[in-house]
């Protein structure tokens, strides 16, 4: 049943995007149904059990048996119902509230949030709990950020604070898992780690950090008012009813083992009451109705935290009851403000004073909700506040402390009464500013239109919540069972709670009466109160602290990046160079004697290769023109190819050969976007030469000292002796590539794909340099690209088919003979290169294959073959098949994947980097031999292009 509830919520999340697409904002009128269904499923599951439902679905059995351990008890039922019922209502409400923009993101994030929150309260596994916790943080971030650019900073600040708390939870979760060896919460609660005082201290600190950030408790309270830039449904759901209650849930979850601990008590009670008072005072100073509610939420959450800190059964019962009461009236109020905001276009009480509020239904909701908030009988808020006072009075604390705490709670309650009244007056448009104040916008040309009532479907859901506040206030015993079960779970012992509106005349009732009387006087004297409070802002600004932290972090990031940024390669290379030098020095002192070098490492023919490489390198660094540099670089590449042949590696040599050719082709394609020569003649810089010589000596010393001094490694020994036997392939290099380290090869294919995509992205975002055109005599045959390419076209007609056939042969025989996917693709690529170069115009080149698709196919094929390997053990295990008498190995399919990916990259390079043809400029006289790039007269270019067309 629990899984059913989760799946139903998941269905809402999955359907959110398509439904928003088809129905627009009215998707909310359908999306609430799965959530309501999930709530019903929870109730059914709980009703049919003895107070606890346990379900388990495996997830990561190899790691502490982490899995979907789900548990429904009274506590999670209360919070689960809040999440689902209020979530369903808010989704229903949103259909009227939303405008036409960003509907999908709203419904998707809201339903995903509901899912995360439901999983959070049902989780009986710490890992699941943690993941869900972070998911709610992310959903909150997206829901705030989607309000537009002004919401970016608040969203980031909210994220910073809540993520910091998430880290606290992660620490707590890690400590609990490490010290108990299990992730199941019920087992952890039963374990003996709670007897170890130092562990408990750390757990309290980290858990409290998580809960305080999530539930906006002092000193982490600032994000909650900040997040009010989100739209009203988001505020009502996340920042009043559900997400901020996650912290409360976490505290209640661990309350059975932590209640009574002094640190726990001090932290929770002090922070809770400070927040409660702070929030109540701050709410009295706000003009924005929604902001007022945000401070009020903070304050009410402070009550809850302080109650949990007191930890007596009465206190925990009161906390649960007040959680329910608060969720009902606060969501109703937030949604009512949303209605007012939607209809009036403002929610500033100073702007509303000049409006006539013809909204009977909405204002009734406002009055009922505020009355419950203020604790006026016969509303549910009165019942819960009475329990609250009882809990403070009965706190098991020494001396006068209970009375001090009660005093603070009463003070907060008076403030609550006052701001509730202020809220009602503000919403009714009856706000009175202090006398002689001129900074109110009353005198401005404000909109004076009458505000009319919204459609019933708009205020229907807030009306339900407001009515429930009344009905459950008059008949609180409806809640008795639920609260009893919930308190049983939070206390850890059976609780039987009796709820009634009238408890007789007792201290709590007297306190309530006191609150109502003093509160009423304050409401009466509101303008004076405001004149006193508003000019006295608090010294401590949490928001400023978070903002400062954010700025400092960003500035520190800039400092760190300044160490590594810069255009000079030397600045980047000096660090690895220094590191290597340090390593070499360490090695010099640490290694006493090197093993003897093996014999026969060098053959006399090697010296020829050394000579060619030397010539090539010197020519490359001395080349004056770019063409020359590329050509002589080719000689280095070919000599390295020869090196590979000489060392006995046909496959590597073939690959190197093809890559060398293709590199030159790509470079040539790009060459005419660069100047012909390397700018002005640079003097050979002395530091460069010194660095080069040192690097050369170091490379020599390192290679000489550290290689060729041992026999073949054990894996290589195994591969040479048994590689063929194990795999049936004779080509050991290929066998390693596609079987023994296929996962590595798959990763490399992905790198190729990413490189291809990166090239495409780069070209899409930044225009390449203009093409440098050649100057050609008008009489020259070179002006006609068709004539010009005759030779290459004729050649390609013969060569291309041969190349393609050869490449396929190479691909398919790779397992046993030289070849394989890499080489095959490179040969095919060179065939396409020939076709490309032979084409008279870029458009005519027959290489327009979908290169991105090819890369994707390659990587997908490789991955799919890997999945197929799961049939026989593990990912990428090669599987042998016998199809029509042909022995087929799944590693061949893998090699075909390699082939596609490499070919895709090569084709992508040609497709994207190819230059347009036929733009050679014709001139009447031969160009003067100049060393610089040919300067082209602007005026002539248009003219000459026309002539080109006519010729």
């Amino acid at each position, binding site marked *: 049943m629990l899984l059913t509830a989760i799946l139903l919520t998941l269905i809402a999340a999955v359907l959110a995007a398509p439904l928003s697409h088809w129905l627009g904002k009215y998707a909310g009128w359908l999306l609430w149904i799965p959530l309501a269904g999930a709530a019903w499923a929870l109730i059914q599951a709980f009703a049919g059990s003895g107070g606890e439902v346990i379900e388990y679905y495996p997830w990561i059995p190899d790691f502490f048996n982490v899995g979907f351990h789900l548990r429904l008890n009274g506590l999670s039922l209360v919070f689960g119902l809040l999440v689902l019922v209020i979530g369903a209502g808010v989704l229903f409400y949103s259909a009227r509230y939303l405008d036409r923009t960003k509907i999908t993101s709203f419904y998707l994030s809201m339903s995903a949030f509901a899912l995360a929150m439901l999983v959070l309260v049902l989780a009986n596994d710490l890992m699941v709990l943690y993941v869900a916790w972070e998911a709610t943080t992310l959903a909150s971030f997206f829901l705030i950020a989607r309000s537009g650019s002004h919401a970016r900073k608040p969203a980031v600040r909210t994220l910073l604070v809540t993520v910091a708390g998430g880290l606290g939870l992660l620490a707590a979760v890690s400590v609990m898992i490490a010290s108990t060896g299990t992730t199941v919460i019920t087992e952890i609660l039963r374990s003996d780690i709670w007897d170890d005082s130092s562990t408990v201290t750390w757990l309290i600190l980290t858990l409290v950090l998580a809960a305080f950030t999530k539930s906006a408790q002092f000193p982490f309270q600032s994000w909650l008012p900040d997040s009010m830039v989100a739209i009203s449904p988001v505020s009502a759901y996340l920042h009043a009813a559900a997400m901020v209650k996650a912290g409360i849930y976490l505290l209640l979850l661990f309350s059975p083992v932590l209640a009574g601990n002094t640190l726990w008590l001090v932290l929770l009670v002090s922070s809770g009451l400070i927040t409660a008072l702070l929030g109540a005072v701050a709410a009295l100073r706000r003009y924005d109705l929604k902001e007022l509610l945000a401070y009020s939420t903070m304050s009410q959450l402070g009550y809850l935290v302080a109650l949990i800190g007191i930890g007596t059964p009465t206190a925990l019962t009161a906390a649960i009851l007040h959680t329910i009461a608060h969720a009902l009236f606060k969501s109703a109020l937030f949604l009512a403000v949303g209605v007012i905001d939607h209809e009036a276009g403002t929610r500033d009480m100073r702007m509303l004073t000049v409006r006539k509020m013809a909204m009977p239904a909405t204002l009734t909701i406002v009055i009922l909700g505020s009355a419950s908030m203020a604790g006026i009988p016969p509303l549910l808020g009165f019942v819960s506040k009475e329990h609250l006072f009882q809990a403070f009075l009965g706190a098991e604390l020494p001396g006068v402390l209970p009375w001090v705490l009660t005093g603070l709670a009463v003070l907060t309650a008076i403030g609550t009464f006052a701001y509730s009244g202020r809220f009602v007056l503000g919403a009714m448009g009856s706000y009175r500013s202090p006398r002689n104040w001129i900074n109110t916008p009353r005198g401005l040309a404000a909109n004076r239109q009458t505000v009319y009532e919204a459609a019933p479907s708009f205020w229907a859901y807030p009306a339900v919540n407001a009515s429930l506040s009344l009905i459950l206030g008059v008949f609180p015993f409806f809640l008795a069972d639920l609260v009893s079960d919930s308190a049983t779970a939070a206390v850890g012992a059976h609780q039987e709670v009796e709820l009634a509106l009238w408890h007789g005349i007792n201290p709590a009732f007297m306190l309530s009466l006191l609150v109502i009387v003093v509160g009423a006087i304050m409401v009466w004297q509101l303008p004076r109160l405001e004149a006193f409070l508003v000019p006295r802002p608090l010294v401590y600004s949490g928001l400023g602290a978070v903002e400062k932290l954010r700025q400092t972090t960003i500035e520190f990031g800039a400092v760190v990046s300044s160490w590594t940024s810069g255009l000079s390669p030397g600045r980047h*290379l000096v660090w690895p160079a220094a590191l290597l030098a340090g390593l070499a020095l360490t090695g010099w002192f640490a290694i006493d004697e090197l093993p003897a070098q093996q014999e026969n490492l060098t053959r006399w023919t090697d010296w020829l290769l050394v000579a060619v490489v030397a010539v090539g390198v010197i020519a490359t660094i001395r080349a004056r023109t770019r063409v020359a540099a590329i050509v002589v670089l080719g000689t280095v590449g070919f000599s390295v190819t020869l090196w590979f042949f000489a060392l006995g590696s046909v496959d590597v040599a073939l690959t190197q050969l093809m890559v060398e050719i293709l590199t030159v082709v790509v470079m040539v394609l790009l060459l005419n976007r660069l100047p012909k020569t390397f700018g002005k003649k640079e003097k050979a810089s002395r530091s460069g030469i010194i660095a080069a010589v040192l690097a050369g000596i170091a490379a020599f010393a390192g290679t000489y000292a550290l290689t060729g001094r041992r026999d073949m490694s054990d894996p290589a020994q195994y591969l040479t002796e048994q590689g063929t036997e194990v795999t049936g392939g004779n080509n050991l290099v290929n066998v390693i590539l596609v079987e023994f380290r296929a996962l590595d090869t798959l990763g490399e294919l992905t790198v190729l794909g990413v490189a291809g995509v990166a090239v495409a992205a780069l070209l899409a975002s930044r225009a390449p340099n203009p093409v440098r055109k050649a100057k050609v005599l008008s009489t020259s045959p070179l002006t006609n690209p068709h004539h010009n390419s005759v030779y290459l076209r004729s050649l390609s007609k013969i060569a291309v088919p041969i190349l393609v056939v050869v490449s396929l042969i190479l691909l398919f025989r790779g397992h046993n003979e030289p070849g394989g996917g890499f080489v095959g693709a490179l040969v095919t690529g060179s065939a396409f290169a020939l076709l490309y170069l032979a084409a008279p115009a870029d458009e005519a080149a027959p290489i327009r294959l979908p290169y991105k698709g090819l890369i994707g196919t390659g990587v997908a094929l490789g991955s799919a073959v890997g999945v197929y390997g799961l049939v026989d053990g593990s990912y990428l295990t090669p599987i042998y098949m016998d199809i029509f008498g042909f022995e087929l190995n799944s590693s061949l399919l893998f090699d075909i994947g390699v082939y596609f990916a490499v070919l895709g990259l090569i084709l992508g390079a040609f497709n994207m980097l190819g230059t347009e043809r036929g733009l050679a400029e014709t001139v009447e006289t031969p160009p003067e031999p100049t060393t610089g790039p040919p300067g082209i007269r602007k005026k002539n270019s248009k003219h000459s292009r026309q002539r080109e067309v006519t010729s």
Partner: protein
Amino acid sequence: MTLSITVALLTAGAVYLFSKREFLRVILGFVLIGHAGNLILFAAGGSDRRIEAFHPSADPSAMADPLPQAFILTAIVIAFSITVFMLVLAVTGDDTDGTATKVEQLDVSAESESDGVRHEPRRNTSRQEKA
């Protein structure tokens, strides 16, 4: 000895090219140091056995070590893709390395649709064309 000298030559050339201003030269240096890295890998497997690693024609005791070869093979292709990426970097964007300062005087071929990617004409040139 010979492999070490080759590696030394390639590394020295690469480091020298890295010290240059032009990005193309840095890329050439990258290609050279790629060669050097691959040869070091090869040297790690030893260069005394030089028979191609194919069964059953070769005697396992005389075979070249196939493991570094497999590493090098993929390394070559990866280095190729990175080279292509760096080449594209060299021809796009701001000419902060000063390699294309003279190209600005050249004509622009604005409508390049060779790959479906829209190539915006460079700002300075379009201003010239308006004039």
